[in-house]
């Protein structure tokens, strides 16, 4: 397998991992909205908290994590960009 193909394999794997995290915070937890709303976080009902703030914050963190790790993957295969 060429360097390019290996890089793409790893990039795809990273993409799928990120999509799983995204699906968890955007869909999976809201499948159980009624069930988790009895729990409490910072005094808020949990489902209310997640839709008002928690999932939003999770998305911000996921994208920063995704971008940092993708940069490392690019550098590993010699496709990193020079600072400009």
């Amino acid at each position, binding site marked *: 397998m060429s360097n390019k193909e290996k890089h793409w394999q790893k990039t795809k794997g990273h993409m799928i991992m990120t999509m799983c995290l995204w699906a968890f915070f*955007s869909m999976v937890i809201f499948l159980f*909205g009624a069930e988790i709303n009895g729990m409490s976080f*910072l*005094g808020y009902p949990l489902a*209310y908290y997640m*839709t*008002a703030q928690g*999932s939003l914050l999770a998305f911000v963190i996921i994208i920063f994590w995704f971008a940092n790790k993708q940069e490392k993957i690019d550098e590993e295969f010699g496709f*990193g960009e020079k600072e400009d």
Partner: protein
Amino acid sequence: MFKGGFIQNLPKIYGLYTGGFLVFILMMAIAEQAGVTAKTIGILFVAFTVAIYALIGYLSRTVQVDAYYLAGRQVPTVFNGMATAADWMSGASFVALAGGVYFGGYSYMAFLVGWTGGYVLVSTLLAPYLRKFGCYTVPDFIGTRYGGNAVRFCAVLVLVLASFTYVTAQINATGTIAARALGIPFEAGVWVGLVSILLCSMLGGMRAVTWTQVAQYIVLIVAYLIPVFWISNKIGGGVFPHLMLGDEVQRITELEGQFGLVKNSAADVKAAGVPGGLKSIAVAHAGVGAGGMAVWKYISLAICMMVGTASLPHILMRYFTTPSVKSARKSVAWSLFFIFLLYSSAPMLATLSKISLIDPNLPTGIIGKSIADVQSIEWVKQWSSQKQVFIADFNGDGILQLNEWFMRTGVVVLATPEVAGLPYVISGLVAAGGMAAAMSTADGLVLAISNALSHDVYYNMIDPKADVRKRLIVARVLLIVVGAAGAYIASMRITSILGAVAWAFDFAMSGLFFPLVLGVWWKRATREGAIAGMLSGLAAGTMYLIWVYPKFMGNPAWLGIDHLRFGLIGAPVCLVVMVVVSLMTKAPDAATQRMVEEVRVPSGKTILGRQH
């Protein structure tokens, strides 16, 4: 003080600008104490900020094609994040989001998740690859990846349909705010709004829009956060509302139980003469609806908004302007961070607004008091006269019940500062923030449409030999035409017929999401597949919309897929047709396959040259 170029000095320039804006707010506060009228303060706020944007627009004028279309590809990561956030947060987000949460509760907040979660798709699937491609517009990518004018034209069609649905609502919002702040009729306000929008974009294209959007973001976030923090501290909600309003949310649930959540019948509401568009609280603040349908309605709406977000051209094109592929990726993260600051505050504002009104222990509470007393409160008088709030004494006992108090959604943002007893200067600030939000989104949309028409239709299809001067003249003329068309439709006041902002997301996801994603992620995707997918997805979505929308054919929604969710019909049709037709046609040639491989590697030159 300013060594080096403009880009190196950006933090200093915008730091000074923010400081200047805060000083301006203080001056207005002093002016208010000195007896300047509320109306004058409102005019000064809107006029001053719009004048600043126009100045930035003038200073960013350009005669370069890549500056006009891509801001010279030198917008730093964090600043592009701010510009995208302003581009994203529309007048509707600013004025109506908190009101939507106030009335809609948990199920409405699917919009919050949808309008933020979509950025994960943007960063993983699209933005870095489109940046590497080096296109000027979204149809530019589709046209080059799949090859040919027919596919390019289909992409332009979807872009115009989605963006135009959105832009009239924005020009409508600028008109409403300008009319209110300047005391002029709505129709005149729309044209004032249009002129302000064009001042920011016409001379400098993307470059001017970028730097005004950064300035507009600063105004709108200051205008949103100051009232939230101030009110929270004033009513004892906590120093940092986002972390400390748990008790208030519980208290609201308790009060809802005490007062009872009553859904008024449409006949009662009509008989009492409640003006159209005003609502009473009928949905629990923090409760979650039970049952599979409630879950599906929540998740399906979130999916439509997320996938739509990742297909909206005016957002995607912001990531064409960063200096590198990795900064495009990081820039998506910063965009969402800046959006998060406002979106996570909207439910807090809704909570503060609701508790201020319904808690009888607070001096601002009105529910449970005598209607005669409530009607003599200054802000109630003022907003009643503008038909923004209304009291209907259904049971005739002279006491205001929860279901007898009606408000327009926008009132939550526009009037809460007054309700909580904040000085008028805050209301002026909120008007300036709303104007900034509506203008920045309108600018991005008008530019996306006119760039697609000038670059893809005019330059690529009609006159490929046109020189730079001619191209930029055409681009500017189209900008005025598109803006004027939007303003004309907005001034006819038929936006309620044109439907919800959500439609733009559904149109974009029906026609563009899969052609864009598969263009990068599936080498086997062919031109014929893309054309068939875009047209059938768009047609299926649009036909379903006509079939289901109450004002058109009004058939019952299938599986709960109503007119806000018609993308759930269009996008799968687009995917299936695109895959089937691609597999039936000849695989793309070796050059196209190499191009796709090249797009997947961040380093090296862009596919399309700097000037094309």
